[in-house]
């Protein structure tokens, strides 16, 4: 879509002459000319257009939504997709045994990343299922004596929705508000814990604004008050050091596709000492200690295990790289543009998730303008609705700023060039959109927008 007709004609000519590839310099270097006005070029050759569209793709800056597979993870998975395809629960033949061995090895790899025992790891279909098991399973098991749960307003939809469905079953849920920084107030948490509270659920790193909650302190509070502590660590596992014993975590949700592993797999950590009892959501043959029946997908869990192992080795290096790129991105944007707000606490923050609000610019139009970069203006699961994200509302962002927020995701595979390109395009389009904005004009003239009385129709 970013081509000039001249290129299309040249490409058509090249294809028309099926000569040996070696004649082209540097083996088939197709000169591409980029055009910023995609509508101007009349698609003379739809085949060319299609072929090019399948080759040129936007830069990927949305790692909070999902991550690409690490080649080392794919390498670990392939044998189990092709050769060693047995069911790990088949006890009678070698296919089953080798599959089971791989599954147990993966379990060990996941456990060692978070400082747990392999027997405490249960494989699930993803962090959403893990969150459901944690919240609903614990609440329902202790339903006779404990009827109260605590969570925060910035949790992932699956936790909030599980809590809502439990409310319909007769439980009480307290949704703790967050401060402007996005972090919860520990005193409020302590005040909210009642004698009949069974579970506190707070996510480690928020997927929209990247704030890190004080997990160790929350774990301390919960263990002293004898309340189970669950954390949704989907965005944090493998990126920041986590230890379930140091941080006194009782349940933890892990997602495969956020740590460069495959989609469709996750895990839940359920503490054994002291034992956390959970009512199983999925009934069946009693696999995974009865907590999650169903055949464990060996290739996927091998991928998850490999991803966890790679993450453990690469954690420090990745953190340095991502911090460096995040610093570069924020500094460049903030130095070139006025009226840009970073959402979330700047100190207790995971560097790879940067949420910026550009005042006087509409978020959707900026996203559409930045069509060569894959970005998001909120979490993927809420991007279908037109409302601004509930997380931004919870941290007290003004309506207009909430609508103009963009989330930049930086990951292991992001390069400096991609960041520079994104920054440059972003600055260019924000300036362009602001030029078109009457609100911006008014602000430049010194009018205080809050003092304006918009007429009621």
């Amino acid at each position, binding site marked *: 879509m970013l081509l000039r007709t001249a290129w299309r004609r040249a490409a058509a000519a090249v294809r028309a002459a099926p000569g040996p590839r070696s004649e082209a310099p*540097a*083996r088939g270097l197709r*000169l591409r000319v*980029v055009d910023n006005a995609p509508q101007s070029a009349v698609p003379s050759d739809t085949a060319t257009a299609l072929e090019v569209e399948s080759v040129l793709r936007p830069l990927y800056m949305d790692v909070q939504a999902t991550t690409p597979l690490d*080649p080392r993870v794919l390498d670990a998975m392939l044998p189990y997709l092709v050769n060693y395809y047995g069911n790990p629960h088949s006890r009678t033949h070698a296919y089953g045994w080798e599959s089971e061995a791989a599954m147990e090895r993966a379990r060990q790899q996941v456990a060692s990343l978070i400082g747990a025992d392999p027997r405490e790891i249960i494989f699930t279909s993803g962090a959403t299922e893990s969150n459901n098991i944690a919240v609903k399973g614990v609440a329902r098991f202790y339903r006779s004596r404990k009827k109260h749960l605590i969570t925060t307003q910035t949790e992932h939809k699956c936790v909030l929705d599980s809590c809502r469905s439990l409310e319909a079953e007769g439980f009480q849920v307290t949704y703790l508000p967050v401060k402007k920084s996005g972090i919860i107030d520990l005193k409020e948490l302590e005040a909210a814990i009642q004698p009949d509270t069974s579970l506190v659920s707070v996510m480690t790193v928020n997927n929209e604004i990247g704030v890190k909650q004080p997990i160790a302190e929350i774990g301390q509070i919960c263990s002293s008050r004898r309340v189970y502590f669950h954390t949704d660590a989907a965005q944090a596992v493998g990126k920041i050091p986590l230890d379930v014993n140091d941080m006194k975590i009782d349940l933890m949700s892990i997602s495969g596709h956020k740590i460069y592993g495959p989609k469709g797999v996750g895990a839940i950590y359920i503490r054994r000492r002291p034992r956390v009892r959970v009512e199983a959501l999925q009934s069946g043959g009693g696999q995974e200690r009865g907590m999650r029946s169903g055949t464990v997908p060996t290739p996927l869990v091998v991928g998850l295990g490999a991803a966890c192992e790679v993450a453990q080795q690469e954690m420090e290096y990745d953190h340095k790289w991502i911090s460096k790129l995040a610093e570069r991105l924020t500094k460049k944007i903030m130095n070139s543009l006025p009226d840009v707000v970073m959402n979330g606490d700047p100190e207790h923050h995971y560097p790879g998730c940067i949420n910026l609000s550009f005042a006087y610019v509409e978020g959707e139009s900026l996203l559409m303008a930045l069509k060569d*970069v894959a970005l998001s203006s909120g979490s993927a699961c809420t991007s279908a609705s037109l409302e601004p994200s509930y997380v931004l509302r919870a941290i007290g962002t003004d309506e207009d700023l909430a609508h103009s927020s963009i989330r930049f995701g930086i990951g292991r595979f992001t390069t400096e060039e*991609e960041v520079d390109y994104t920054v*440059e395009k972003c600055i260019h389009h924000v300036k362009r959109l602001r030029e078109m904005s009457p609100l911006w004009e008014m602000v430049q003239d010194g009018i205080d927008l809050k003092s304006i009385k918009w007429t009621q129709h």
Partner: protein
Amino acid sequence: MAASSRAQVLDLYRAMLRESKHFSAYNYRTYAVRRIRDAFRENKNVKDPVEIQTLVNKAKRDLEIIRRQVMSLKSTPAVGMVSRTHIPRTGAALRNLYLPGSSSQSLPYSSSSSSEMT
């Protein structure tokens, strides 16, 4: 196996960089090259021969992984990134960063179609 000499380590380094440049995906290629350089640089002052041998063995395993993945991913259509012609840069050095190393094979989805600049 004899302890790895400096020459062997350098050969391994060169081989890994050469193989990595064959990744058709831009992000994998750039990550592999960068990671290999940084890893070898970080460990260049290691003196203990046992540790050196462990690192060399790991590197050999990683080289095999790169070889296998480069091969298996050759059949997927190469994806390129948006080219950035409107950023004024000196062409040659940067262009070579995005061109994978030359290979004698001629493939239907040549990996040269990824990230080009004019």
